[in-house]
C-alpha cells in the first residue's frame, strides 16, 4: 500500500533535488553517510513500497558502486598507503576512501531521486504545476510520462511478439542484443509517426491556445508548502554559496 501523502509531490521532488545538491556541495563521506542513514533509509522504509524501490535501487546503483570500487580501489594513482598489490593493480587506503565517498554519493543520489519519483503522484504533480501556471509544454512533457512510457513499453513488446511470430528466436547474449536492435528501429519510426498525428490532435484540442490552462483536478498545494519550497531553495542556495566561498578561501 502506498503511504499516506503528507506533502505535495512538487515539495517532495524539490526536497530530494536539494538534498542531492547539498551532498554534492558538502562533498564529505560522513555527511553522505548521515543523509543515507538518517533520511534516505527511513524514507524508503516508510514509502509503502520498500521492496520495489529497494530492487530498483539495487539494479541502478549496484553496478555503479561495484565499478567505482574496482576502479578507485585498485587503480588510484594518488594512493600512497598500499594494502596489497597484484601487478598493475594496487589497493590503497586513499583509493578505498575515495571509492567509499563516490559510492555513498551515488547511493544518496539514486536513493533520494528514486524514492521521490517512485512515490510521487504524477497526476497531482501535473495538476499542481498547472495551478501554479507553469509552461504547459513543460507540464505536458512531465505529464505524458504517465501515458507515454507504458505505451512505449507496450509497443516494443508488440513489435517483439510480431517478430517472434515471423521467426525471430530470442535467446541469450548476442541474440538478445540483436533482437533489441531489431525492435528499436520500428519502435522509433512508429513513435515518430504517432507524434506527428498527436501534434495535430493536440492542436485540435486547443493545446496551442495562449490563455492560462486550467486543471480538472483540485489544487492540493498549500500556501505554507509554497512558502516552504521558496525557503528551502533559498537556504540551500545561500548555504552552498557560503560553504563553497569559505572552502575556496581555505
Amino acid at each position, binding site marked *: 500500500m502506498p503511504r499516506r501523502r503528507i506533502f505535495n509531490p512538487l515539495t517532495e521532488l524539490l526536497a530530494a533535488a536539494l538534498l542531492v545538491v547539498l551532498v554534492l556541495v558538502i562533498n564529505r563521506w560522513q555527511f553522505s553517510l548521515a543523509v543515507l542513514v538518517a533520511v534516505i533509509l527511513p524514507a524508503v522504509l516508510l514509502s509503502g513500497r520498500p521492496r520495489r524501490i529497494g530492487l530498483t535501487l539495487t539494479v541502478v546503483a549496484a553496478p555503479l558502486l561495484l565499478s567505482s570500487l574496482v576502479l578507485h580501489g585498485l587503480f588510484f594513482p594518488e594512493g600512497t598507503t598500499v594494502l596489497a598489490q597484484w601487478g598493475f593493480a594496487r589497493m590503497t587506503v586513499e583509493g578505498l576512501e575515495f571509492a567509499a565517498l563516490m559510492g555513498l554519493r551515488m547511493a544518496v543520489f539514486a536513493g533520494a531521486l528514486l524514492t521521490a519519483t517512485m512515490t510521487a503522484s504524477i497526476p497531482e504533480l501535473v495538476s499542481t504545476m498547472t495551478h501554479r501556471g507553469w509552461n*504547459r509544454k513543460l507540464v505536458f512533457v512531465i505529464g505524458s510520462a504517465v501515458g507515454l512510457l507504458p505505451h512505449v513499453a507496450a509497443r516494443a513488446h508488440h513489435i517483439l511478439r*510480431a517478430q*517472434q511470430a515471423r521467426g525471430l528466436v530470442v535467446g541469450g547474449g548476442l541474440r538478445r542484443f540483436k533482437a533489441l536492435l531489431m525492435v528499436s528501429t520500428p519502435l522509433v519510426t512508429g513513435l515518430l509517426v504517432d507524434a506527428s498525428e498527436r501534434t495535430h490532435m493536440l492542436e*485540435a484540442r*486547443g493545446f496551442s491556445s495562449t490563455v492560462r490552462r486550467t486543471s480538472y483536478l483540485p489544487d492540493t498545494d498549500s500556501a505554507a508548502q509554497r512558502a516552504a519550497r521558496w525557503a528551502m531553495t533559498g537556504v540551500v542556495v545561500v548555504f552552498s554559496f557560503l560553504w563553497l566561498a569559505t572552502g575556496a578561501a581555505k
Partner: protein
Amino acid sequence: MIALECISLAYDDNATALVDVTLAVHAGEQVQVVGPSGSGKTTLARLLAGRTGGDAGTAFRGALTLEGTRLEFGTGTDPRIDPAAWSSRVGYVAQGAWGQLSMMSSTVAEEIAFGPANRGMPAGQLRTTVRDIAAKLQLTDLLERDPRTLSGGQLQRTVIAAAIASEPQVLVLDEPFQGLDESATADVAAVLELLRAHGTGLVVCEPLLPRRLPVDARVLALFEGSAVFEGPPGDARGAGLRRYGVGLEGAPPRLSSAGRGPTPAARTASPTPAGAAGAASVTPARAAGVAGLTPARGRPAGDPPDRAPGLPESRPKGDALLVELECVSFTYPAQPDEAPAGIRSVDFSLERGEVVALLGSNGSGKSTVLQHLNGLLRPVSGVVRIDGRELGRRPTGKLAATVGYLFQNTDQQLFERTVLREVAYGPRAAGKKRGAAIGQAGDALAGVGLSGYASLHPYELSFVRRRLVALASMIATQPLLWVLDEPTAGLDDEGRNLIGELIRAHAATGGGVVLATHDVAFAEAVSDRTVTLAAGRVLPAAGSPASEAPPSQ
C-alpha cells in the same frame, strides 16, 4: 452549418485525392461518407476538420464555409485556419481511438476535460461540463478509470466525449466502429444518434455501407476521389455501389471459388487449384495475385510426398490433426479489484484443409486462444499440439515456419524499411538465402496484388494495403497453419473479398486456417465451421454449424 466545395485537392506528389466534391451538413443532419480504401474519405474528413494541408505541401482549391463565413483556397494567399478555434466548432474523431488520447490524463474525466482546460475553462465549469457529457454518453461510471484500460467501445465513447467537450456544431468521425463488436457498435451508434437528436451535425466515414442508417441520413459515395452517388440510404442500397468497391455491411464476401467447398476431407482429396480462385470478382491485378500465389506446404493426399526446393522442413504428418487444444486454460494477471480474464478448459481441433472461425464479443477469449497456437501464450494447464507435436517449450520463433500469425493491430507488426524487406523477413529468419527469400517475398506480394509497391516504406501505403503487406509477410514463410486475428477489420469490400479468396485457396491446398472475427457474414462464408466463445469458454455447438450456414455467393 458547414459546407465544403472542393474543386481539387492534390498531394505534393501530384496524386489527386479529391475532385469536384461538394458537401453541406446542417444541424441534426447525418451524412454517411462511404468508399473503398483510397477513395478520399479520410482526406474529406480532414478537410472538414480544417486540415487543409497548406503547411504540408498539399494543394487545396475550393472553399470551406462555416456558419456563414466563407474561406476560399487556391486563389492566391490561403487563409490560415486556427486549429483550436476551428475544432471548438467542428469536432473531429480520427481513425484509431488510441491515437486520440492526450497521453497525459490518468482518468477518463481528465481526458474529457483536456480540451476545455487547454482553452482556459474555469475549474468549476470544467467539472460540470465533464459531468454533463459523461451522463449524456453513459460514461459516469467510468470517469475515474484509466483511459488506457478501457475496452474498445468504452474508449471510442471517451474519445467522442472529449471531441464534443467544447460543444461543436458538427462532429466528423473517421471509421468510429472499426474493431468493435456488435454491442460496442450499438453503444457508439446510440451515442451518435443522441448527439444528432441534440442538433449536432454528423459526418461519418466508413468503407462499407452500414446496414442500419437513420432514414433521413444522406449517403455520399466516393470512388477515386470523386462523388459517384449522393442520396438517401434506401436509394444507396439499390444503386449498385458494389461496382465502385462499396459493399454492404454484413453482406457475405463475394468468393468466386464457390465459397466454402466440400468437407475438408473431400477437399483434400480433390483440391480446388489455387489459381481458380478470385478471377471473377477482384481486379485483374489482385486476381492475378491470387493465381500466382505459392501453394501452402500441405498438399492433396494423392500427391507424392516430395518436397519442392526451398520449402521448410516441417510437413504434415500422416493423419495428425493440424491443431489440437486439450483442456487448455490460461489466466492473465489481474488487478486486485478485477475478475481475472483468460480462457478455461478450451478443447479445440482443426484438420488439414479446414477453416474454422472463432466468434464472440470483445474479451470473450478469441485472441487468447489464437495466441496459444504459436506459443505467444503458454497454457497454465492443458496441452497444445500443432501438426501432431506437443508445443511444449519450443520458442515462438521456431514455430513461424509452421504457424503464420496475422495480428489485429497492423502497424505493430510492420517493422522493416521497405515492403519487400518486410515480407522477406520471415523467410530470412527461417534461414533462407537472400535470393530465395526475395523470391518467396515476391510471390507473396503478387498473391495480395502488391507487386508494384515492393520498394515503398510500409507507412507510405494506405491502411488496407498495410494490412495486405502484413498478410503477405505471413504468407511468405509458407506456413501450413494461418492464424488470423480480425483479418477483415477496417478492410473495404475488395480487400475483404481478396482475403476470403486467399483463405479458401490456402485451405484448398491442404493448409489450415483459424480466424477470430466479429464479421459473422465473412466467417460463415469462408469457414467450414464456427466456434463461439463466451467468457473464456467454448459454447456448445448447436447441430452442425457447417451444414447450417448459408451458402456464400
